[in-house]
């Protein structure tokens, strides 16, 4: 084989690079390059310089060429390793699967949460209704207890031999109206059954008075929601009187609105 300088000066390295060196010289040159580090370095420099020239004069090809190339390769070969698009596709698929699972779990959780919220609201409503019903029942019980107390009181008063009963028949202002007073001078108690007194407008109320030496003393406003009303016992009363007064009662009896009275 030729010596190093001859090879360099002859242009063999450039021809080898370009693929123009005859085959019979290629083998010998490759052998020399393998053995001569200096020549190999020289050749490597030329290679690098030509590569640099190519890169400096590069022209970007259209994108579809790469796509066509890979499409052709996929058609031609099976089992190509580490396919980037398939890898990406797999990753996307895996990611997609993960996202679907996550979305499904989230959806189930949201549905569950919504169901629980609905149930909680329904339970809350039920609880409110139940609470209302309980309050109503309590109120009814209280009313019943009140009625029972009134009835008990009335029964006690009636059964007491010291109780005196007085009938108060309504005048023309309340035709058909009727009340019954139970006075016990021993116990100093006064009870009136007002069940038969007619209903009044909302801005009016019945009020009971005791006539003491010509003066009307307030015994109390009659609560028409109750059948039996406990009133204040007044000593030395000569008569019992019921008038119609503005709602809430009056300090002084409106005599013109007297509806019934009875002398004791």
């Amino acid at each position, binding site marked *: 084989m030729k010596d190093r300088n001859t090879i360099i*000066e002859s242009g063999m390295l450039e021809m080898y690079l370009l*693929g123009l060196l005859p085959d019979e010289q290629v083998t010998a040159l490759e052998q020399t390059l393998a053995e001569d580090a200096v020549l190999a370095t020289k050749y*490597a420099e030329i290679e690098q*310089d030509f590569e640099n020239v190519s890169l400096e004069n590069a022209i*970007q090809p259209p994108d579809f060429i790469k796509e066509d190339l890979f499409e052709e390769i996929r058609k031609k070969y099976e089992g190509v390793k*580490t396919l980037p698009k398939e890898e990406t596709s797999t990753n996307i698929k895996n990611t997609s699967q993960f996202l679907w699972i996550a979305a499904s779990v989230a959806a189930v959780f949201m549905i569950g949460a919504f169901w629980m919220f609905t149930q909680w609201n329904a339970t809350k409503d039920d609880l409110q209704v139940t609470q209302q019903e309980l309050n109503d029942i309590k109120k009814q019980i209280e009313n019943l207890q009140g009625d029972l107390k009134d009835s008990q009181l009335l029964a006690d008063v009636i059964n007491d031999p010291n109780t005196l009963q007085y009938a108060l028949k309504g005048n023309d202002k309340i035709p058909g109206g009727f009340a019954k007073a139970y006075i016990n001078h021993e116990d100093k108690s006064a009870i009136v059954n007002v069940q038969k007194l007619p209903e009044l407008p909302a801005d009016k109320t019945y009020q009971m008075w005791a006539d003491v030496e010509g003066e009307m003393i307030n015994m109390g406003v009659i609560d028409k929601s109750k059948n039996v009303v406990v009133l204040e016992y007044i000593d030395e009363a000569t008569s019992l009187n019921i008038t119609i007064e503005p709602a809430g009662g009056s300090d002084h009896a409106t005599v013109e609105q007297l509806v019934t009275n009875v002398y004791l």
Partner: protein
Amino acid sequence: MKNDSILIEQFKNRDETALSKLYDKYSGAIYGVIIRMCRNEEAAQEILQETFMKAWDKSHLYNADKGKFYTWLYRIARNTTLNFLRKDEKLIQTEDLSVYKDEGVEEDDDMHVELKGALAKLDAHHQKALKLIYFNGLTHKEAHEEMGVPLGTFKSYVRQAVTKLREVYAKELLILICILELLT
């Protein structure tokens, strides 16, 4: 080359990712060569695809001990392009196997074949000598006839051009090193 060694090894094992990366790195350089050789965009695109397809098919034959991957790829591109041109009825090869004899290389310069970089900095005859053999795919015999100089003279041009090219790159490298030194 060292940076590409793993990539090329993967490429030889038919790793499509490696091919994709190598394509991205070298397709522009190779396409620049092909289009300057055939001066036909449509044909150049087909040849580029064929070049990489051949490289893929013959990846097992590449031997890094015998040269750079780009050089190997360049030879495939060059041969593929020349085969294409020889098949072209308009470019039927003559007895001296010249594919450009009838057309003339000079008349076909356009924006695609305008040379840039270090090569453009060389003297006109050096520039042309390298262009004829490297970018136009001519043999030394075809090229010296194209240039109208004796074969020996042409070979001297090539040798001198390669030396000048080395000097330009070495100078650029030196400037780069100086800039880096100044920056640090």
